[in-house]
């Protein structure tokens, strides 16, 4: 217990030591959040998490062979082409070939026109399974769902994120933005405090990134596995000692949308490699 407390104190002190209180800005129009004095990330200074990696890790992502994320992409390619008896495979509708769904991942999460719910790529794959393939939805972080998501997203590799900005999506992104700016957990930190205000500074031997999701599903060396953006969000929530939301929660999907809008213009790097 005392160890945990000491670690928590260390983390707080570490942050307090390197986080200046936001300097009062005389021009309120430059404030990201009216009245709070918080400044949002400048749109002309977006940096992918790739920029914060060690050269070795960057090399791992750049080499399509040694990038372990491609193990899941390969698996997804197999699943995409496989069908159960009497049911169509993904490829029967979307077409075979490794560019059939190029550019699609860049537009997720988006509002599903028929239900009005916000869905991410994982959710879209599960909807397809239920609506068109008569199969059950895949569990989050299952090998099959990670594989299919990585396979589809990899086809948009190198394309810029072009998130949904329709009116219903903007309303939902507001929920995600609120989550991003809300301080939570025993450490009482918001996403904003690390990833907008303190990126580039050091935290526990690592450099704080700007918190973009453009490489996900990504292979994290810490996980020794591919993982979804929601797994990453849960890790951050756990990191500030907050109760993470369940996988697939609408609020997390809204956070994904807010993150995509925040990172608009960055290229998709799936399957990325992260520390």
């Amino acid at each position: 217990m005392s160890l945990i407390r000491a670690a928590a104190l260390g983390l707080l002190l570490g942050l307090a030591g390197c986080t200046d209180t936001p300097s009062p800005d005389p021009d309120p129009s430059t404030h990201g959040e009216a009245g709070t004095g918080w400044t949002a990330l400048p749109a002309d200074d977006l940096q992918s998490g790739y920029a914060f990696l060690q050269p070795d890790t960057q090399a791992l992502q750049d080499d399509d062979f040694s990038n372990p994320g491609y193990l899941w992409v390969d698996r997804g390619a197999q699943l995409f082409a496989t069908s159960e008896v009497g049911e169509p495979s993904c490829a029967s509708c979307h077409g075979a070939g490794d560019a059939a769904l190029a550019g699609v991942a860049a537009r997720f999460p988006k509002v599903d026109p028929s239900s009005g719910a916000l869905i991410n790529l994982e959710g879209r794959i599960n909807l397809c399974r239920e609506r068109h393939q008569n199969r059950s939805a895949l569990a989050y972080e299952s090998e099959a769902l990670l594989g299919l998501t990585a396979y589809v997203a990899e086809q948009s590799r190198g394309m810029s994120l072009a998130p949904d900005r329709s009116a219903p999506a903007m309303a939902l992104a507001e929920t995600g933005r609120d989550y991003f700016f809300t301080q939570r957990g025993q450490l009482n930190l918001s996403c904003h405090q690390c990833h907008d205000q303190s990126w580039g500074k050091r935290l526990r031997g690592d450099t704080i990134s700007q918190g973009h999701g453009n490489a996900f599903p990504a292979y994290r060396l810490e996980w020794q596995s591919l993982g979804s953006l929601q797994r990453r969000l849960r890790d951050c929530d756990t990191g500030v000692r907050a109760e993470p939301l369940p996988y697939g929660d609408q609020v997390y999907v809204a956070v994904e949308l807010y993150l995509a809008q925040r990172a608009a213009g960055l290229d998709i790097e799936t399957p990325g490699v992260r520390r």
Partner: protein
Amino acid sequence: MFAIRISAPERATPGEIVELKALIRHPQESGFRLNARGVPIPRDILTRFVCLYNDQQIFAANLYPGVSANPFLSFHTRATRTGTLTFRWTDQDGESYEDSVELVVA
């Protein structure tokens, strides 16, 4: 599902040094970790890797619990004659996984 990725040139000239790369999907569970309930997770590792060139061993490695998940190996060999390169991993229970590629030397 044990996915394997192999990288080897399809053609080589006699005497050429070629780079071979092999990646396998495996948890390499060290046996030293505890699960969320504090119970040790049983060890599950690959212990041996061999590469055969026309059934002759050209590279071998012993793997231990310190090796990361999804181990990646890269090594070189001299292309001598057309033949098959076999990559074989054996786990702690003696079960093996292998894949092979053809190398044309001309």
